[in-house]
């Protein structure tokens, strides 16, 4: 999942690859409040994972790795309910 997330961050949002590390805070990687909304849409369109606005706001303080883990958990949940 980290690799897929990194692709979205680097190729779609043009963030500096060197800043996109698992331990980097999303904000330090370049995800400000505007980019977070864009990232929410990208995740929906490319990975099929949907966040509400409230959920998305709560991810702002995560690291890239934590966000990646959250995506993995959401995907797992989706797969469980969609046989």
């Amino acid at each position, binding site marked *: 999942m980290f690799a897929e997330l990194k692709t979205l961050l680097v190729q779609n*949002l*043009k*963030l*500096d690859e060197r800043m996109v590390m698992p331990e980097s805070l999303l904000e330090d990687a*370049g995800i400000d409040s*505007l980019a977070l*909304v*864009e990232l929410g*849409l990208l995740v929906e369109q490319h990975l099929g994972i949907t966040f509400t606005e409230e959920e998305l706001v709560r991810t702002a303080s995560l690291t890239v790795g934590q966000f990646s883990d959250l995506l993995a958990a959401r995907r797992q949940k989706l797969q469980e309910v969609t046989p």
Partner: protein
Amino acid sequence: MSRSRAAITGVGLLTPAGIGTKASWETVRNGTKTMAAVDPSLWQIPAALSCRVPGFDGEAFLDPVLARRTDRFTQFALVAAREAVADAGLDPADWDGARVGVVLGNTAGGMETVEEQCSILEKEGARYVSPLLLPKMLPNMVAGQLSTLLGATGPGMVVATACSSGTTAIGVARDLLAADRYDIVLTGATEALVTPAIIAGFARLGALSHRDHDPAGSSRPFDRGRDGFVCAEGAGVLVLEREADARARGVTPHAFVTGFGASSDAHHVTRPHPDGQGTQAAINAALRDADAIPEDIGYVNAHGTSTPVNDRLEAALLAKNLPHGPPISSTKGVTGHLLGAAGAIEAAFTALALREQVVPPNVNLTDPEPADLKLPTFPERHSFDLALSLSAAFGGQNAVLAIARH
């Protein structure tokens, strides 16, 4: 001596005539080619021509994140401003940002972004509209982004007077410099309105040339065969300072803004006043401001859009005002019409013409309609100290700059 001269110490240009001041100016000065071409991005519009900045890609000139978060009109201005600041020999790391300001002209902001997002709204729904819509399209965002890029924290603004925006912005910047609001002001204008809806709108007004069978000959100011303008894009940024400050830094200014005049036709939304009274008032005001008389004028960079109405009225007005017959040219024959940015790039061309003592030619002028004007068709060596740069606009807002060699 004018009451309030401003030294032009830096010039940055990004125009259909070239990327960078040198390339743009040399193409315009030599008048060797015209930049209009059939534009495939405007496929919905019959006979749609444009003058694009050749090979421009924001990501190649700017930080990729900044590029994707800015509309094309802002990207143009950022690149041109960086060149202007370097040309002035200034380093933003050294300046007192609170004394540096931004006064740029623009017509309608980021319409490319607006049209793209309108399409997404219609096809996909509101949820898919980009959060960057407003940060990219707001007209004032170009001043905001430029102040951020260069640490210019003095007053920043965008003025909108349609196709005279660039001229108005430079005049306002000069006035604010004279009022001691700034020590350094980055001024000029930017425009990126070669978009399907905007071009369709101009087409419906009957303002555009239809010469798609002869793109190179489509923009032909003052020629009897003209049939409309060719929409263009780009930016021009000037650095203005007080002359004493420039001299203290050991910088020789390119030229000086010595007069600014503006007026409103109060007549019609798109048609100029038939007796030219608004442009006349702006010329008079600019000359008064520069403490000059008509006979002092050694060159005019005309608005000269290549539309039948504008060029006829402007030619008559210039013939009446300048019976001593200085050379007159419209550089739009090369660049097309940059709308709000036209006045900015033309003020820059006028300053460079004064510095080099050469008049840029009228291109595509094979059958001049006005018989009583001196309209050079080749670059002409010329000794002159004062020039006018004229702009007019939808909305009837006329603006004129007087630019002096010394």
